[in-house]
């Protein structure tokens, strides 16, 4: 098959299961950007994010024989992704403490465009913007793990309550209150920047 037009992702995944390599390539093309973005916000490092996103695809590939289309494909995909992100966070707990201290380094990691170079903003504006970005990152980072995952999925992956609740294996109402608390914390902690 050339693409997934007209098929649900679950159907495409069943073709992967049946041995269709192009079906797998289709899923990679479709989800690599969202997954790299997701992992970037969970792991805060572009290179690590790519590595983890690739690992998600490898696990999808490895699990193809046992895949069953009972759950939505993206739910399954993000379960794998959140699990990897959690493990990564746990394995690198100690390194992360160091990263936080050295946040002043020149950044290739924030994903911001260097407008300063093309002269559209002043050095001072760039500094303010950078402070703001670091604040956002560190406050999201500081949320409890589940709240952080919920915010990243809701805010940056545009997933709805139902899907987030399925990924996190929570009830929908628990997910709603989790998200409300998370945003409430962020609102409080980031209010100096709005």
């Amino acid at each position, binding site marked *: 098959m050339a693409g997934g037009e007209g098929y649900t992702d679950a159907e495409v995944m069943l073709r992967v299961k049946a041995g269709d390599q192009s079906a797998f390539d289709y899923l*990679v093309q479709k989800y*690599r*950007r969202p997954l*790299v*973005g997701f992992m*970037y*916000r969970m792991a805060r490092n*572009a290179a690590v*994010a*790519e590595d983890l*996103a*690739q*690992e998600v*695809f*490898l*696990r999808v*590939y*490895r*699990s*193809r*024989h*046992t*895949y*069953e289309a*009972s*759950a939505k494909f993206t739910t*399954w995909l993000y*379960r*794998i992704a*959140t*699990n990897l992100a*959690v*493990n990564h966070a746990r394995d690198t707990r100690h390194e992360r403490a160091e990263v936080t201290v050295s946040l002043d380094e020149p950044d290739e990691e*924030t*994903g*911001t*465009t260097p407008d300063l170079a093309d002269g559209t903003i002043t050095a001072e504006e760039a500094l303010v913007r950078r402070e703001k*970005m670091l604040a*956002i*990152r560190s406050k*999201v980072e500081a949320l409890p793990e589940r709240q952080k995952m919920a*915010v990243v999925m*809701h*805010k*940056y992956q*545009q997933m*709805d*309550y139902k899907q987030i609740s399925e*990924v996190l*294996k929570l009830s929908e*109402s628990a997910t*709603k*209150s989790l998200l*409300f608390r998370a*945003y409430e914390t*962020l*609102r409080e902690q*980031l*209010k100096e920047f*709005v």
Partner: protein
Amino acid sequence: MKCKDIQEVMPDLASGLVEVTPEIGSHMAGCGACATKMREFQQTMALLDEWKAPEPSPYFDVRLQARLREEMAKPQAGRLGWFRRPVLAAALTVLMGVGVGLFYAKGGGMYNSQDSEVATMDSPVQSAEPGTAVGDLQALEKNHDLYSDFDLLDDLEVQHNVVANP
């Protein structure tokens, strides 16, 4: 409609994912607290929008293809149906445990505690690492619960550690 109901949908409302229904609208009009909170949430959402993620690098596909080829070059455990049965997976784990035991028995008193840590790194137990062989086989048993229950996964990891550091 109560404040609590509004709160529940506040993240979606403030991100514009959900339309303001007449019901919500009339509550907002009469409730200063909710209206204020809504404005603040909108500001927070706008602020969070500024945190951009980088695009996948041009090497992403190439690297993934390389890792996939590596994967395919490995013995195809996934194709052997019997290999995935829990009993056999468990038996395999036991066998590996025995293997490690033999390894240590063979090593005799050669190692002090530091050395045995190093030795463990090179032992066959390495394949029980999450994401490979046994780790995956155990996890893959259940498609649905796979990667969903973080606590269970923690337990799995603990088990690996037990095996890896007898």
